[in-house]
């Protein structure tokens, strides 16, 4: 064996992404939802790295950097929201905050 086929790297990213997605959908606790989001972002970053190294391009890693920036911003805002939620409703259950129904 010499080298990993690119598909394998991408499939790994897909699996991680799908796992994160599943968590996002079936978890009600906001902190788990945020964690799922981190997993998904991370999976996306992984896909960039795989593609970048696969094609021998530096852009993949540069994009990964931006993904990380995004993840940091997302985490900070998300956690602030989480604290706000907890203070308003004394729970982290997301389904409680459904006041914007049509």
């Amino acid at each position: 064996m010499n080298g990993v086929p690119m598909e394998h790297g991408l499939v790994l990213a897909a699996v991680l992404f799908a796992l994160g997605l599943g968590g996002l959908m079936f978890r009600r606790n906001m902190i788990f939802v945020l964690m799922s989001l981190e997993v998904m972002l991370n999976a996306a970053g992984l896909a960039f790295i795989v593609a970048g190294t696969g094609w021998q391009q530096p852009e993949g890693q540069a994009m990964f950097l931006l993904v990380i920036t995004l993840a940091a911003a997302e985490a900070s805002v998300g956690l602030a929201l989480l604290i706000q939620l907890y203070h308003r409703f004394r729970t982290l259950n997301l389904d409680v905050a459904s006041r914007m129904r049509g």
Partner: protein
Amino acid sequence: MMEHATTLSIAQPTTLLPLTFLLPLVGTLILAFSRGQLSYRASATVGTASIGLAALTTAALALGFAAAGPQQLTLWTWIAVGDFTPGISLALDGLSLTMLGVITGVGFFIHLFAAWYMRGEDGITRFYTYMNLFVFSMVLLVLGDNLLLLFLGWEGVGLCSYLLIGYYYTHSANGWAGFKAFVITRIGDVFLALGMFLLFTRLGTLNIAEILELAPQAWQAGDTTVELAAFLLLGGAMGKSAQLPLHTWLADAMAGPTPVSALIHAATMVTAGVYLIARMHGIFELAPTALYVTGVIGALTLLMAGFAALAQTDIKRVLAYSTMSQIGYMFLALGVGAYDTAIFHLMTHAFFKALLFLSAGAVIISCHHEQDMRRLGGLWRKLPLPYAGFMVGGAALAALPLISAGFYSKDEILWQALAADQQGLLIAGLVGALLTSLYTLRLIIGTFHGTAKSDNARHAETGRGLAHGLPLVVLAGLSTFVGAWITPPLAEVLPAGPGDATHVGHSSLELLAAATALGGMALGVWLFGLRRGWLRLANRGPGAGLWHLWHHAWGFDLVFDWTLVRPYRLTVWLLKSDLFDGLFRLLARLVRLLHLGLSRTQSGRVRGYAITMVAGVALILLSLALVIQGT
């Protein structure tokens, strides 16, 4: 040009001509803008004087006419677009002069009588406003030298008729009677309008004289177009003159004050149809079928109305049906081509029918607004003047030989029918004469003889005063042979009738007609006076059925109710919610439904949104994968 009208001069009849309609118009305006400030006496004076002055003007015109002949006067061009140039222009010839005399002359006496009749009524100003407006419109109708101006007068008299029928507005029924009159005559008006459109499109002019001149050049006799035009004009005439089948409004029109019935629904407006056909005789001469149909309609109407008049209980309704019947005679005369005879009968009819109506009005007021024959009776001692009026008028109506005006005109009609070789029409006319005698006798005997059958009749009060007496006396005078002496100057305007050339058999027909009238009267006296056999006939078996049928004038009202009124009301009811708009409302409802459905998905739960989104993504990717797989 209007300022010329102020300089009075008999030597120049044209300058007098506008006065005939301006005077009633001035009267109308004074009354309309008084805003209730005028007293009863002042209103009546203004209303009557304006017509009186118009009548004097007409007399002056008649004097001048003998010397100067036909006149023509254009006041201004009404509309001018391309070759469509109808003007406000007047034409005076023998025919219009005759009509003008009837309108202003008889009209003046009726206005005068109304001053007595309407005492104690509210809104006398309104009454005289409408009456003057009516005379104004009617004068324009007969003076207009083009069809559009004629139509102006034609519609104007219809409006005044509507207003005056509904004069006692607090009773809805009166208003609806006026409504019916207006709408049915309007149906006729539409035919007239279509006739105008057709004539203008084909001949390029609306001027009556030009039409009569151009028509023979444009069409052969019996040409389809000219037949159509004649039929359309006939339709207009039928509506206005209450001829079958557009006659049902006239009996209901009796809801108006009696002077109105005398002026509008006996003497002038209803005869406008006769005037129209006589005026447009050139078209009818080219359309033999239409002319024949005119005669047949006249004959049918005179029979139908004669039978109906036999079975009425309201004295005014008897007179209304007799009016229809007499106009039927005029149509019969027109139908055999005897236009001048029709106009002659129109004139005598105006005299004696106005007399009858005014007498009836006198009876009604004297008997405290009682007009049902079954509740009158025995009045001849208490009300001698109305009785005399009824006798003279009735004699003229029944064509009592030699002494009555009606005899001369009706006899002439029958002679013209014979001379035109129209036996069917002749027989109808003779039967009609018999019927006329019968119902006239029934009317007079029922009202004035026998015993008084109600308190109102027992306590009848005799009318007094010039306004009451003078019109009755003058009209009574005109209803005798004196009226028949007046010869309308029609020879220049209208073609000679078929009976003018020979007189073979004329005297035997005169004898026959006289015998019919006298026989009818004798039968009437026997039926209604001596033996009271009428009641027995009318109450039993088929007699009761016929009575019922005739009382409701052959049930035309019912037929129209079921064929026109009810379907129309049904349509209104069906469309009430605006069907077409309903389509759009349906669309709006659909959108609303979709909105409700979609907003249900707006649950407010983030997880739900995430699931939906993922499902969407999965779906898109799956289809994408399948597409890729397919290629």
